[in-house]
C-alpha cells in the first residue's frame, strides 16, 4: 500500500518532553517493572508529557514481546453484506470492544474456494491474530477450512466433523413457539410455506411446526405444506390454498421466512382477504425493514443474531461464565433461542358460520 506515513510519537519523544530516560518512560507507560521504582512525581510528569504529545502505546510493537495484538479475525461468507446477518457482526464488534479487542473482518463471498479461505486465514495469522470466528449468512453446515485453529468459533453455521464449537439459532424452538401462538388463537388448519431447497433451518422449523401440532392433538395435512422459493414471490403460492373449498382452506399460515410472508400478504390481498381478520400469517427471521413495515406488522420469530454474535466473542476470548443460563449444548453445537415478536398479523379464526359462507 502506498500510504503517506505519519510519524507517531515514540517513547523517545516522551522521554525528551519529560526530561527523563527512555527506560523510565518505558517503565511508566508500558507498566514494566524490571526492578525500577519510579517516584510518583516523575510518573505523573511522564504521563502528562505522553498525553500532551499524543503518545499511544504501540500494540504491534508490544506484540513482538507478548505475541498478542488483541485482535480477533472474523471470517465470513457474506455476513457483512446481508442485512439480517450483519447484526451478528455488530454485536461481535461491541463485545470485542468492551474487552479491548478489535475485529479484522474478511468477507469471502458466497461459496469461496477452500484455497481462498485458507489464504485469508494465513493473512490473519501473519497479522498475529490468535482468535477466530467463522460466520455464515444463513444457518448451514460447512467444511472447516484448514489453518483454522481448533478453538475457532463457528457462528450461524455448524462445522462439519463436530470438532469446533458452533453457535446457531434454535430454529425448532422458534417454529414451535410461533405455531403454538396460532394454535392458542384457535387455529386448527395451519399451512406451512416451506423453503423448497430444504436448508438445515427448513428441516428444523418443520420439526418445530410438527411438535406444536402433535402437542395440541392436531393432524399434519400434507396438502397444506407447500414448498416454494424463499423470496417474496414465493409467498404468492398461497393463492393455491386460498382457492380451496372453505372447509379445507387454512385459517392461518406459517411462513418459512418474512419475505415469503410478504408475498403471502399480497396473495391474501389480491383475493380480497384481510390479514388477520380473514387469515392469520406469521413469519420467521424478524427481518429489518420488512417484518415491522408490513401492513399489518408481522408476528414473527426474531433470529437471536445479536446474542449469537456476542457469545461468539465471549467463547473466542474464553470469558468465564459465557455459557451460564444457556441450555446444555448437544456436543459442540450451542442453540440460542429467538424471541417470539407479537405484532398484529394473528387473530382468532372467523367462526364456523362465516367460514362456510361463499368465498369473496
Amino acid at each position, binding site marked *: 500500500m502506498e500510504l503517506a506515513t505519519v510519524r507517531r510519537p515514540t517513547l523517545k519523544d516522551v522521554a525528551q518532553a519529560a526530561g527523563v530516560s527512555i527506560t523510565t518512560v518505558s517503565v511508566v507507560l508500558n507498566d514494566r517493572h524490571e526492578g525500577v521504582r519510579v517516584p510518583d512525581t516523575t510518573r505523573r510528569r511522564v504521563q502528562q508529557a505522553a498525553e500532551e504529545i499524543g503518545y499511544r502505546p504501540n500494540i504491534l510493537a508490544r*506484540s513482538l514481546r507478548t505475541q498478542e495484538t488483541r485482535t480477533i479475525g472474523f471470517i465470513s461468507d457474506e455476513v457483512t*453484506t446481508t442485512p439480517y446477518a450483519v447484526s451478528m457482526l455488530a454485536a461481535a*464488534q461491541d463485545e470485542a470492544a468492551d474487552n479491548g479487542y*478489535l475485529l479484522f473482518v474478511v468477507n469471502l463471498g458466497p461459496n469461496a474456494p477452500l484455497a481462498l479461505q485458507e489464504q485469508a486465514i494465513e493473512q490473519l495469522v501473519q*497479522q498475529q491474530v490468535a482468535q477466530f470466528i467463522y460466520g455464515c449468512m444463513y444457518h448451514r453446515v460447512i467444511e472447516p477450512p484448514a489453518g483454522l485453529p481448533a478453538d475457532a468459533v463457528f457462528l450461524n453455521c455448524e462445522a462439519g466433523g463436530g470438532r469446533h464449537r458452533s453457535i446457531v439459532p434454535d430454529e425448532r424452538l422458534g417454529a414451535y413457539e410461533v405455531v403454538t401462538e396460532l394454535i392458542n388463537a384457535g387455529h386448527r388448519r395451519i399451512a406451512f410455506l416451506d423453503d423448497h431447497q430444504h436448508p438445515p433451518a427448513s428441516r428444523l422449523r418443520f420439526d418445530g411446526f410438527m411438535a406444536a401440532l402433535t402437542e395440541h392433538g392436531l393432524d399434519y395435512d400434507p396438502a397444506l405444506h407447500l414448498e416454494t422459493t424463499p*423470496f417474496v*414471490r414465493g409467498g404468492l403460492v398461497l393463492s393455491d390454498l386460498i382457492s380451496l373449498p372453505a372447509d379445507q382452506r387454512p385459517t392461518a399460515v406459517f411462513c418459512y421466512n418474512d419475505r415469503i410472508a410478504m408475498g403471502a400478504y399480497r396473495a391474501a390481498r389480491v383475493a380480497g382477504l384481510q390479514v388477520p381478520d380473514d387469515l392469520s400469517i406469521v413469519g420467521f427471521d424478524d427481518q429489518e425493514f420488512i417484518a415491522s413495515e408490513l401492513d399489518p406488522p408481522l408476528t414473527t420469530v426474531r433470529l437471536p443474531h445479536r446474542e449469537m454474535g456476542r457469545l461468539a466473542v465471549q467463547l473466542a476470548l474464553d470469558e468465564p461464565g459465557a455459557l451460564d443460563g444457556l441450555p446444555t449444548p448437544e456436543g459442540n453445537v450451542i442453540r440460542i433461542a429467538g424471541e417470539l415478536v407479537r405484532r398484529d398479523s394473528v387473530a382468532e379464526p372467523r367462526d364456523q358460520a362465516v367460514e362456510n359462507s361463499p368465498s369473496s
Partner: protein
Amino acid sequence: MDVARLAGVSPATVSFVLNQTAGQTISEETRLRVLQAVAELDYRPNRAAQGLSQGRSATIGFVSHDVDFGEFAAAAIKGAHEACLRQGNLLLLVNTGGSNAQASRLISELLDRQADALIFAAVGTRAVVLPDAADRVPTVLVNCFVAHDPVPAILPDEVRGGREAAQALLDLGHRDIAYLTGKPSQWATKARLRGYRDALRAAGLDPANHTVLPGNYHADSGHDLVRALLRQRRRPPTAIMCGNDRMAVGALLALLEAGVRVPEDVSVMGYDDQFQLAAEVRPALSTVRLPYDVMGRLAAEQLTAGGAPTPGRTLVHCPVVMRDSTAAPSR
C-alpha cells in the same frame, strides 16, 4: 532466527530470500536450503513486525458511526473490503453506536494497532464531529461530512438522483408527478426534492402545480400519503415518486387496495434500490440505486492509491434502475 540456524545461513540471508530483496545474489542452492528450513519449521512471516519496520501495517480502520451496522453500512463495508483485499490490506472494523466519545476511544484503539488510514462512515447523510485523533492518519469520510469540508468526503449525488428519477418519469411522458418525500429535515430529502424541482422546471413545468407531501421514510407513510392523495385529488397524478423504497411499498399497497393499477394507471418510483426488497416486490420497483458499495470502495481506493485522497466532496452518481412499476401514462 530458527530458520537461519537450521539452514546454516545468516538471518539477513533468510530475510533476503523470503522478502525477495532485489540486488542480492544468493545461490539457488542456498535459496532452496532456506525454503526447506521454512517449510520444516512452518515459519510464517510476522506481518505485524514487518509493519513496524516499514512504518505501515497494511490495515485500514473502518469506523461505522451509527447505532448499529445496518444494511447500508454493510454495503459500504463490502465495497471498502473488496478494494482493501485487492491491495493486500486488511480491514479493522469498529462501530461507535453513534457516540462521539466511543468514536474517539475506538479510533485510538485503531491507531494503537497502527492502522495506516481510516474510513469514517455514517448512514443517513449528515454532518459529523470527527475525533481529533483521526488527524494523525489519512482519513476519508463516507456518507457524512465535517463543517467546511477540511476532511475529504464521499457523498451520494442526491440532487442528481432526484433529478434523474423525475426525468425518467418525464421521459415516459408523465406531466403530473406527485412527490411523497422522506423526512423533510434530512439532508437527502432536501437534495432529492431540489433535483425533482430542477427536472420539472427544465421540462417547462411549474413545480408549484405538483403535489409534494412530506413523509417519514417508512412504509406506513407511503400508504397513508397515497390515501390522502387519492382523497384530495379528483384526478390522481399519473406518477408518484417516493422518498424511498419502503414508502413506495406502502404506496403500492394503498394503490392495490384502492383498485388503482400499477403501472397501467399510475407509475411508482422508489429510491435506495433496497436489498431483497425493490427487485422482489410485485410489481418490481423502479428506483434509484444508493451506491454505498461504490462509496466504500472509492474511499479505500483513494486511501491506498498513493498521494493524498481527493480533497473536498466527491459526489457519487446514484443511477436510476427501471423495473416494472413505471410505464407511459395512459392519459
